[in-house]
């Protein structure tokens, strides 16, 4: 065993010494390889982080949401429904929610206006709590500058800023404006006792299905959305976008593979001669292949490390500046939040499969060709 280890170490040392001689060429190869990995890794890390973010947000969402449907479209729901449902066993709490969208004609952004479910969280009358991207898109000059919203030309409603939401409340809260119930109803001119939808929390997750069924019978016109459904939608959305990115990056992997195969098969005359010498002085075909695999392994590993670390920095320190808009944006506002750094073993393994396997596959046959050279050819 120790002899095996020593052999591997000696081969690795030789490989490093040999690589160091063609420094420029090998550094170039390493950089191109690392760049390909960087693109794939960025997409993967970013999408994984987004998925996590959505999970965190959803963890606090209600288990079931009841929406009223009119002509197949979401409509306001009367408050007396709450009393009807309250009797169902297993429902821990039931609350009417008020939220809506507001199109800002000043800059074309969409905001989400909302009344917090917990009355203690609501701002005092005439004040608002705002998401963290609002001050930026509205170019608010100072910390406590009031927010003016204009519903129709000439109309202007003023809210003082009670608080800004902190950055870690993530993706979904970034374009948020929280009001108290009276202000909200006044702003949208809503009658009393209607709600946007109704949120249920349910104690035992195994009972969700039965409860949903019961409510479905009580309110045949309502649409019932469970948290799991939303979670799945998010997951699919992000995974799908990630897949597209990876596929695009796959094209670059392919290009790189062709390049690598070309490089490996067109071993320079110098390298071919060296392999011939090694074989002549007593190296076995297997030794040469092992040495070349070390070379491929060192290059792959170096590129993988470099590419992944750069991608990590790109995603978590620089907010994925290069393609955040592809993966995130569903609104004009791009959230300006730092993703929680995290690495996922599954994604890393998959990444390794996707980038290193093709390289290995592309180089192994040319390596074998060179390694099976006749040892006596250097005598000629």
């Amino acid at each position, binding site marked *: 065993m120790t002899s095996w280890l020593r*052999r591997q170490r000696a081969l690795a040392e030789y490989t490093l010494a040999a690589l160091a001689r063609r420094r420029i060429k090998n550094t170039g190869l390493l950089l191109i390889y690392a760049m390909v990995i960087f693109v794939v890794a960025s997409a993967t890390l970013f999408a994984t982080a987004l998925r996590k973010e959505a999970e965190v947000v959803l963890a606090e969402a209600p288990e079931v949401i009841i929406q009223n449907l009119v002509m197949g479209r979401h409509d306001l729901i009367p408050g007396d429904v709450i009393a009807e449902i309250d009797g169902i066993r297993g429902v821990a709490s039931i609350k009417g929610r008020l939220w809506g969208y507001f199109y800002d004609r000043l800059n074309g952004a969409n905001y989400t206006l909302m009344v917090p479910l917990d009355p203690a969280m609501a701002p005092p009358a005439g004040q608002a709590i705002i998401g963290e991207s609002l001050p930026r898109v509205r170019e608010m000059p100072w910390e406590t500058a009031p927010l003016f919203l204009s519903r129709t030309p000439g109309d202007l409603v003023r809210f003082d800023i009670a608080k800004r939401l902190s950055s870690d409340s993530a993706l979904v809260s970034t374009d948020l404006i929280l009001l108290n119930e009276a202000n909200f109803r006044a702003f949208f001119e809503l009658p009393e006792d209607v709600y946007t939808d109704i949120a249920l929390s349910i104690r035992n997750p195994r009972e969700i299905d039965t409860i949903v069924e019961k409510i479905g019978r009580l309110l045949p016109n309502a649409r019932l959305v469970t948290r799991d459904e939303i979670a799945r939608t998010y997951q699919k959305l992000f995974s799908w976008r990630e897949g597209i990115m990876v596929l695009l990056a796959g094209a670059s992997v392919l290009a790189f593979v062709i390049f690598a195969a070309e490089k490996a098969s067109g071993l320079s005359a110098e390298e071919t001669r060296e392999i011939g010498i090694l074989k002549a*002085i007593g190296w076995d075909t297997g030794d040469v292949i092992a040495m070349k695999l070390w070379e491929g392994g060192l290059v792959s590993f170096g590129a993988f490390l470099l590419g992944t670390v750069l991608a990590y920095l790109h995603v978590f320190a620089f907010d994925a500046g290069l393609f955040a808009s592809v993966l995130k944006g569903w609104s004009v506002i791009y959230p300006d939040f730092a993703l929680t750094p995290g690495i996922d073993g599954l994604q890393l393994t998959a990444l390794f499969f996707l980038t290193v396997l093709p390289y290995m596959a592309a180089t192994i046959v040319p390596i074998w060709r060179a390694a099976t050279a006749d040892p006596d050819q*250097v005598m*000629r």
Partner: protein
Amino acid sequence: MISVQSVCKTYNEGRPSALTALDGIDLEIARNALTVFKGPSGSGKTTLLSIISCMARPTSGRVLIDGRMVSGLPERFLTLERRRTFGFVFQRFNLIRGLSVLENVLLPATPLGGERRADAKRALARLEMLGIAGKAGERVEFLSGGEAQRAAIARALINDPPVLIADEPTANLDTELAHRFLDIVSGLRAEGRTVIMTSHDPRIWAADQVDRVVSMRDGRLEENEA
């Protein structure tokens, strides 16, 4: 110690360009002797040397080393046999450029998994003995012809093989260096090694250090001189 029995070697067998380089060679090579193959260019000296030293397989015939059949072995085991038994010095030295003298000398030991430090110590001792220990850290491109050959000899001996194989070792050397080479070789013989080399250089055939000259022509042996 090495026995060659009716060995034939045909290159490009079955093709129009087929060429019989060796044609029925029978030869016994004695232990601890200095044997030289002589003959005109193209007579098959290098081919015979490569078959004796397990570099190539004969098309037919047998090669035995210390009574062990080696001619039918798969390549992997042929290599094992070869690196256990032979060290090589080539006509063009065949050092690997860009590496230091010491790194070059260590190359045959690299895949063996021996103790690295002991290997290096042996290499340095050998370089010392050959008088080029001072150049151990230097890149091989910067060596003179004589130094390069001595580096190549040190490399051939790093695994302590009983047999040294040299193909046209003096072709690129002047008379003085050719004699120095013969001195080194007879020193090796004094260490108990067997030396087999090819040469078309009359200075070598005539030297007293040579035990036996085997003369070749057109792939056959001509005569043996004692």
